[in-house]
């Protein structure tokens, strides 16, 4: 991947990836910082990036791991949880539905939240979600089903028993 290709890739996917990581960790500013750092590492590790079948997935995974790492470091140092996963929203204006959805996502267990975002937001098929998260396909399907049910409940749309039978590609 040369500089021109990288620039095009970066420009086209940055906002999308920030949105995805935001949904996963619940903090937009932290998501942006982690995605930014992940792209720096992507260029730094461009040999690895060239080998990756899906560069965007590579950056997403790196950004997510960075967020997890930073969160752990923050908690371990006993600073206020002012970074990832903190219950606050950034200053920029977001729509009420957007805020409600992010808050609801934060209430989900991490595994369910990540599966939901990868499948429904990143449009990854279940098998690719399984590959990216390192769990069996059946586990992904269970997480998607439970996560969707919980999300509907958290957003005040009822327990959504009718969704129990939802299938995932």
């Amino acid at each position: 991947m040369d500089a021109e290709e990288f620039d095009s890739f970066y420009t086209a996917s940055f906002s999308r990836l920030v949105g995805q990581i935001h949904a996963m960790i619940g903090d937009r500013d932290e998501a942006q910082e982690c995605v930014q750092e992940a792209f720096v590492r992507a260029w730094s590790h461009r040999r690895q990036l060239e080998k990756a079948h899906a560069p965007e997935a590579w950056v997403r995974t790196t950004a997510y791991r960075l967020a997890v790492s930073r969160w752990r470091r923050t908690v371990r140092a006993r600073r206020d949880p002012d970074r990832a996963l903190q219950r606050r929203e950034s200053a920029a204006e977001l729509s009420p539905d957007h805020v409600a959805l992010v808050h609801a996502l934060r209430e989900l267990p991490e595994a369910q939240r990540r599966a939901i975002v990868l499948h429904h937001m990143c449009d990854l098929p279940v098998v690719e979600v399984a590959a990216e998260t390192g769990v069996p396909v059946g586990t992904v399907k269970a997480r998607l089903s439970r996560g969707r049910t919980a999300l509907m409940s958290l957003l005040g749309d009822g327990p959504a028993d009718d969704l129990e039978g939802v299938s995932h590609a």
Partner: protein
Amino acid sequence: MRDPLDELKNLSGNLDARPLPPAEVRRRGNRMRRRRTAFQAVGAAAAVAVIASGGAFVTGNLTSAEPPVGPAMSTSPSPSPSASASAAPAVQSEIPEDFPVAQDIDAPEGVDSTDLLRDDATDQSWYGLPCSAPGQEVTFPGDDRRTAARRVWVEGDFWGKSRQLFVYEDHVAADRALTALKKAADACLGADTPPGAQPMDWNYEWSPGNETTPSWLIAQGSTIADGSHPFFVDLTVTQVGRSVFVSRSGRSQKERLPWQRLEDSHEAVLRAAWCLWMEGPCGSVTPEESASFDKETIARGLPNPGGDVPEWTWTEDDPLSAVACGGPENLPSQPTASFRVEVSPPDENAWRHLLVFGTEQAASDALRQLRSSAVVCNEILGTSADDPTDPSEMRWSLEEYDGSPAVLGIDGLVYADDTDTRVPGRTLTRVVQVGRALLVAQLSDSSSAAGEDAAAAKLNADVASIAGEMCVFADGSCEAG
């Protein structure tokens, strides 16, 4: 019924992202890679020297009466016996006779490889800089404080391949010269070709360093298309502490060479210069008195993203990262020296940190503090009284190991109950004391429960193996290993 997943798909569109310019991202990536490469070069070559019977170690304040002792270069790969065995960088003003200034000069076609020419004049001019004309005397502020210089080139090489090495009295003088060079390069980009110079287009990349990190200026020039014979120049200028190395190579090939290749070709010079003129791990040596601890030992078992070539991130004298709830500021005494190696995303979240204290008692006190921190940490973060609904907490379990070396096992569990987990996996920490040294090894594992068990077992094995090599830090008998 409203489907929240429809709204989920719109999340990205609502964001007001403010990304850095792409060029800035690449610049930072290049800088990260250079630093990784630089530390990799030193990490491969450097060993930590200790006095087996004394209390001194590397740099920093020493509590014993022994003179300060620095790390020694290992024997391989060594740029020169004189550089590795008898150098005293604090006063190293000369360039060793066998310093590898010309290690990567290929003999051009038709030229005998023995026809290397050499100039050791301390006041020699810089050769072949952007916008300079042949024969033009180019010097910069700071050049009057050189202590040595060497230029090596091949006679008859049409493409003007040469290597230059300057050594200055101190880092400040070298820095002044390089800063002036950068200004000259800036001016060159927008300037008309000076009389006598070949019209060329130049572009360059600049990565500033400091006393412990190299600075780089990498430039490439090409003749402006005017019907004359095409000509391309690759120029790298690297400041390593008190030294500045200049590599200039001309060629006829049209394609642009990756800058990474240019950097890699000078690794031997960088490594040798680092150990002679850079502050840091390759400081003064006392080979007769010291036993060595190869610092790569602490990387044992870490995944290596570089494949056959070690590509870990090394840092020196960094404070200990927070372990449990105890930050580095809580240690009862600070180490006299430390080395840290890290593997970070995208590969893994893992690091090892070796801390060496002035005395065994100081190391024991530090270990005791880390143990106490883990206990207190549970009382602070793990209580339901704080916020029973907030799952963003870590629970720590302590496991004591008997015997020598004393091993403290700390497992940082991020909620074993998967349904309340905010982040996956757990953090595994092992602290081992051998004599006056502590090894802290940490692995953040995000795999399945079975994977965590395997990771814990491997971490234990790695730590035990490294501990077996740490007896050089123990006074008297050592039962490690």
